[in-house]
């Protein structure tokens, strides 16, 4: 089927496919070797019972180790709870977040925190904040008329 390929096209495709393979190997090493995976998790929850189910009955930032925190958060139309988070520089934060209503997102610009919040599911992701500053926590999935006002603040001191 490809024996009629001109020689130049073979070279072109070899280079193209070769770079894709190299690229995929890099992604694979980052995923398997360094454990760098996008947010996820298979944990489910009843959307209507979010506010009575631990840990989301008391959504908060809790310290779980030396400079290590867990942020148990609720995203709902049109706010995050907790809406303001303060942590020291270098803190590692384990986010766990869910929604009692529609799909939301959590995006913290200038970091790799980029999480989809799907009702019925808990999304988890961890990130270490190495630079101090005023960060914004923004909803980045359309959730209704107040979507563009749905935000929180995260301060790294």
């Amino acid at each position, binding site marked *: 089927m490809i024996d*009629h390929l001109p020689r130049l096209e073979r070279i072109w495709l070899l280079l193209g496919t070769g770079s894709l393979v190299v690229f995929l190997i890099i992604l*694979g090493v980052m*995923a398997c070797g360094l454990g760098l995976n996008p947010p996820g998790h298979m944990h489910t929850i009843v959307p209507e019972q979010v506010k009575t189910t631990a840990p989301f009955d008391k959504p908060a930032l809790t310290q779980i180790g030396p400079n290590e925190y867990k942020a148990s958060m609720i995203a709902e139309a049109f706010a995050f709870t907790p809406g303001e988070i303060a942590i020291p520089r270098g803190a590692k934060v384990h986010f766990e977040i869910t929604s009692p209503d529609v799909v939301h*997102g959590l995006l913290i610009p200038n970091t790799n925190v980029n999480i989809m919040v799907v009702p019925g599911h808990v999304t988890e992701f961890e990130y270490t904040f190495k630079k101090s500053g005023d960060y914004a926590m923004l909803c980045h999935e359309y959730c209704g008329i107040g979507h563009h006002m749905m*935000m929180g603040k995260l301060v790294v001191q």
Partner: protein
Amino acid sequence: MSQQSEERFMFDPKDRKLILSHIGVSFVAIFIGAIAGLLQGLQRTGYIELPASLEYYQLLTIHGVMMALIFTTFFIIGFLYAGVARTLGGSMHSGPRNTAWWGYYLMVIGTILAAIKILSNDASVLYTFYAPLQADPLFYIGMALVIVGSWLSGIAIFAAYGKWKRANKGEPSPLFAYMSVATMVLWLICTVGVAIEVVFQLIPWSLGWVDRINVELSRTLFWYFGHPLVYFWLLPAYIYWYVNVPKIIGGKIFSASLPRLTFVLFILYSIPVGFHHQLMEPGIAAFWKFLQVVLTMIVVIPSLMTAFSMLATFELAGREKGAKGRFGFFRKLPFHDARFFAAFVGMIIFIPAGAGGIVNASYQLDQVVHNTLWITGHFHLTVASTVALTFFAISYTLFPSLTGRKVTPFANRLGIAHTIIWALGMIFMSIPMHIVGLLGEPRRTAYTTYMDHPIVSTWAPYRTLMGIGSVFLFIGVLMFLYIAIYLWFFAPRTEEHVDFPIGEVRDTGHNPPAIYERWSVWVILTIILTLIAYTIPVMSMLQHSPPGSAGFRTW
């Protein structure tokens, strides 16, 4: 091949009516979509405020549905009918044509139903209609009718192709017809996903027959459809590049086999890849996300092949005309011809656009860009530049053969100018979208300062540029519609028939292998790949799902 013996081809008046009816609807859609695009483009960048009766997200829904779903689908089907009629014996024939009309009416009724509900603000759920946002049932029913109607369009093309194959046993089908069938095979396989979502999940749930919806499953069904959807937009543009452009530039189709291999690869690998739109979400295990990332990268290969074929065609045509030196052939290309120039600019834009697509699908890298304006910038380069510019070129090529009117030097110059305006508009809009996306501005947001958060100040200059870009693009749509209406109704009539230019295949001494026409092989392979990529994660969504979500109307 039989198409080459037909001198002075003229469309059957019945086919002409069918094709123009589809393209007419697509023009209405692009006009409405452009108005919504201009208003929301200026609102979100802070240039204007909307009246209280008009919501940003309503405009965004109109823009997305009209441009991404209605303009594209109607235009593509009209274009495919034209090429099928032209290359398969000169006519669609009455049987397939009747099916085609049924498809048309269903799609028009569906579009009107959906449009009514969007305009009454009962369906501001954007063109991805993610549950548990719950629109009015008529919106979903309208969408279902559009899908079912498009299936009839596919069946009409299959029927015309089957008729030709029976009359020309053992012969390879004309390339245009082959590619049209491939495009529709892709479309029918992928729309099954969204049809299941709409008919079995969204409609019963919005009517209140069931209380809850499996949200993650609905998203997965949508994106099973949503990625091949972008190839459904792209493949007709590729057909024009592969089949029509060689004739327009006075060259030949580089190969009869390679384009077929390209399209087969698109059928196989554009479907089992939808998870790369869902990399950031829960409920899908990392392994399956990664597997689909790998499959996504494979679909880059047929586009690399297309790039090679295009340049080879250009070079051969240029050398034929006496071009010297390594790149001398470029100067022989008819850049003064809008039918070529618009498509050529689309091809150039596809280079950065495709590279951006590889970034988006790159698993960890997607964390930087997912759901930011980078993504919006990406698909305004792909569908709204590469594909749309090619569709504009197709219009300039197709209209004279349909209406018997000629592209006057004036219309041609306007077409060149329009292409430049469009490209400038996209440069002003899409490049800033990419940059501001990297800086963290989310997509799909009305104008906001996020309570004067300092980060927004870094976005401000890019917003200014995006607003200017949207004005350029609106002017571009008006110019295009002006040219199209001129060519349709007012341009001077030609003395002789104008052919719909179909390229001839360069004689390579090889006929395409018969395996390419064994559609059952490709369909079965596609189903196997899809089952491998989706069975286990979908089973897990069914077995380990939360109880599901009630509907919400948050707009």
